[in-house]
């Protein structure tokens, strides 16, 4: 199967949302995806994008077939005050039927290359500990599990807690 990697364009938002939902289903969290195509479009392709996306697209069986978007990676830049810019890999997914063809490896290689070129000293991401295939995929390639090795825990404040904290205190 021939495929190519390219930068996402505004027309790709419906495919991106489709793949986001497929990945959420794999993680058993499909009901949590409340983002819409419109929001993805505004947030990724406006004046100051919140994210960037790389798309894996296959050519159909014959030249008459439309190309299909079969994988994607969504990333943005974060900052570690100890070592500087980082590339944060927010989402990374290849459709089930297109796995084992090297698409995932090529996306990861492309992102690592981009990280080096944009002066990032690391590439960071999270994985659920019960996601053995993904954990192994990354560890085989040299990723360090900072939660295991250094004891970092990820915390989250949800909307209600944020609203409570944002209200100025009486003190």
């Amino acid at each position, binding site marked *: 199967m021939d495929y190519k990697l390219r930068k996402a364009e505004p027309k790709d938002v419906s495919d991106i949302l489709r793949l986001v939902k497929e990945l959420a289903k794999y993680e058993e969290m499909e009901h949590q995806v409340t983002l819409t195509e419109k929001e993805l479009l505004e947030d990724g392709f406006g004046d100051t994008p919140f994210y960037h996306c790389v798309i894996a697209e296959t050519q159909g069986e014959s030249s008459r077939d439309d190309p299909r978007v079969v994988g994607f990676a969504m990333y943005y830049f974060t900052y570690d005050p100890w070592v500087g810019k980082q590339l944060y890999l927010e989402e990374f997914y290849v459709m089930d039927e297109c796995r084992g063809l090297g698409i995932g490896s090529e996306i990861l290689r492309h992102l690592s290359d981009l990280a080096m070129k944009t002066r990032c000293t690391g590439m960071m991401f999270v994985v659920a*500990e019960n996601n053995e295939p993904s954990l192994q995929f990354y560890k085989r390639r040299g*990723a360090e599990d900072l939660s295991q090795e250094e004891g970092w825990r990820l*915390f989250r404040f949800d909307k209600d807690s944020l609203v409570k904290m944002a209200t100025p205190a009486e003190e």
Partner: protein
Amino acid sequence: MNFKIRAASKEDCKDISRMIMELAVYEKMPDQVKISHEELQRDGFCQNPFFQCLVAEVPEEQKSKEGCTVVGYALYFYTYSTWKGPTVFLEDLYVMPEFRGKGIGKGLLSKVAEVAKKKKQCVHLHLSVLDWNTPSRDFYAAKGAQDLTVTEGIHVLRFDGQNLDNLANEAPKD
């Protein structure tokens, strides 16, 4: 104690750098701090800054033993959730030991939450804490934070140094 929370300016970078090191010492990883206040200035105060920073300042008459009036900081940036949209990551929150217990930490955290909600309609605020850092874990839990490493088994992973280099240079076989 009187204190003021304000947006950091370029001139605050020396103080911020000093406190970054103090926080790294507290986290028992001072040898991991590789960047200087000049790099911080370059990355935080350019056209498209890579982070935002708030500082907590006390009046001259309440300055620290070493003469510092900038006594705390919060460093954060905007991130994105494919489920919910814009989010905030609070990378560092620190108050100098002699100024703790006076509401400065809470003040910094509230200000970050306020900016997140008002400026970007962020729906989540994330941060990471070391497992042995009970005072911090308790501080955030009391304010409603959920430990995703416990509840969802989330682990933080990183490629850096030679591993990042290797990855960039080859496409390993699965």
